[in-house]
């Protein structure tokens, strides 16, 4: 856990430079409530982007494995790129790699840092805050490549960016696949 501590320190410091302390701690509190094993979130300004979601995945790319874009029940299928929670995922779906929509495949490790999306759940009409974590330490899974970018932002807004290797700070930092974890309801 030493490494996690160090990361937390580093994230806190770098975040302090560019966001209000209140915003960061508010989110942290929210996430702590919801999840026992908490990803560390170098996030600012999440409150800005909790707008109403567009349900159709515009520009979604899907390739390989069990991903079947256009399938009727795809929006509720964690093996499909069109699954509702994947609205800002970019990479290989861990559900096609031995994990699930929110668990890493055996033998890999979660990235403690992450990017954040806000996805609309058509089942209950609500918007959820979703943490996209990379699973790290094995070579690329290669199955179910999925690229969706709702409210995704360029690299200068890192907490909303899905292009960077979020395994970067893991001790074993190769990228294997990506998961999505519901953090809670998005603030309206």
């Amino acid at each position: 856990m030493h490494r996690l501590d160090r990361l937390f320190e580093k994230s806190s410091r770098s975040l302090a430079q560019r966001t209000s302390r209140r915003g960061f701690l508010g989110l942290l509190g929210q996430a702590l409530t919801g999840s026992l094993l908490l990803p560390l979130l170098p996030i600012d300004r999440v409150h800005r982007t909790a707008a109403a979601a567009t349900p159709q995945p515009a520009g979604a790319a899907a390739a390989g494995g069990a991903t079947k874009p256009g399938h009727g029940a795809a929006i509720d299928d964690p093996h499909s790129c069109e699954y509702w929670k994947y609205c800002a995922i970019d990479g290989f779906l861990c559900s096609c790699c031995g994990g699930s929509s929110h668990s890493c495949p055996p033998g890999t490790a979660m990235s403690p840092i992450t990017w954040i999306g806000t996805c609309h759940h058509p089942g209950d009409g609500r918007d959820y805050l979703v943490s996209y974590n990379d699973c790290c330490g094995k070579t690329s899974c290669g199955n179910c490549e999925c690229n969706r970018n709702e409210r995704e932002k360029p690299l200068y807004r890192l907490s909303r960016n899905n292009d960077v290797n979020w395994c970067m700070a893991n001790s074993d930092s190769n990228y294997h696949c990506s998961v999505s974890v519901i953090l809670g309801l998005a603030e309206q």
Partner: protein
Amino acid sequence: MRSYQSRAAWLALLACGCATAAEPLQPEQFTVETLPPRSPHWVYIVDDAFSNEIDARVRLFDGDSYRHLGQIDAGFSPGVTLSPDGTTAAVVTTYFARGGHGARTDVVEFTATATLELSAEIVLPPKHAQAPPSYFNLAYSSDGRFLYVAYITPAMSFGVLDPVNRKVLGEIDTAGCALVIASGGNRVSSLCDSGRLLTVTLDDQGLEASRALSDVFFDADRDPVFVQGVPTDTGYAFLSFLGQVHEVDFSGPQPVIHPPWSLLSPAEQGHWRPGGAQVAAIHRRLGRLYVPMHRGGEGSHKAGGTEIWVFDLGTHRRIARWPLKPLRFGPAIAVQVSQDAAPVLFAAAENAEVAVFDALTGRLRHVEKHLGETPWFFMNP
């Protein structure tokens, strides 16, 4: 699995037609998946990723759910084997200091099959045989005490390793004979160009105690055997390019070579051949041999099978012939069969499709698209 809970919740919502549910979805807890108890219908697929050859991997795939269960990194041109107790997967491979270039490091990496976590490694002399996967690139002694690594530099030899204490014990020259066919607690046989088997017997320290050559049992000029031997009850069966089956009993102090028999009727000879990367599979208890066969000639020995032929190992009679083209699958370049009472047959095609058949009836159950890039070898769990 929370995903199923949430699916149920959503379906319930749809049924009631509510726009907004009373209870929002709860935050999810992030976890790392654990493997269920192993199933005989799992298969380890050695994917050489030939177009990105430094990035080979072993994929664990479930022949019932058709799901990927996990992955083991395998570097460049790996050899893969399982420990006798099934708890450890060992991979011998090469890594370069700078990805695709730079100094070569050869290593055996050990992964716990229950967790797919790396547990240890042994660094080797940079000599491991960078050749296609087979049972004989890397092999354990039957008691798990020794691990043998085939070396080609291009001189041929093998390394003797102590997997428990993670040491290289030594290297034994095989005088131009290739690969490591492990038997018993202390014997390693190799295939010689002369058509013989060289068998080296080791002492307790893993040093050479004695060596012996078998009689000639094949002719490398006229009808060489594939090095991809297939495990039988007592040893391995070696198929030849022209379709002879050489069964070798490795259970005694020296290999006993049975008289060969042919996959082919006189009318078929010269027309049909076995071929591919993993040229046959055997269900040991049922005594059934599965061979992808194709119409070919000189140089076609790596061509995949357009049909799978099934033989009874007791009678040497063909009991089925399963054409693949009507199934829009194949040709099949690799096959494996599970060892349980309701066996499934796996077959890989050159386009990286993997088919799952009922191994008793030949019924096609499933075709998995893009199971890796170059799935060239299957191993049972």
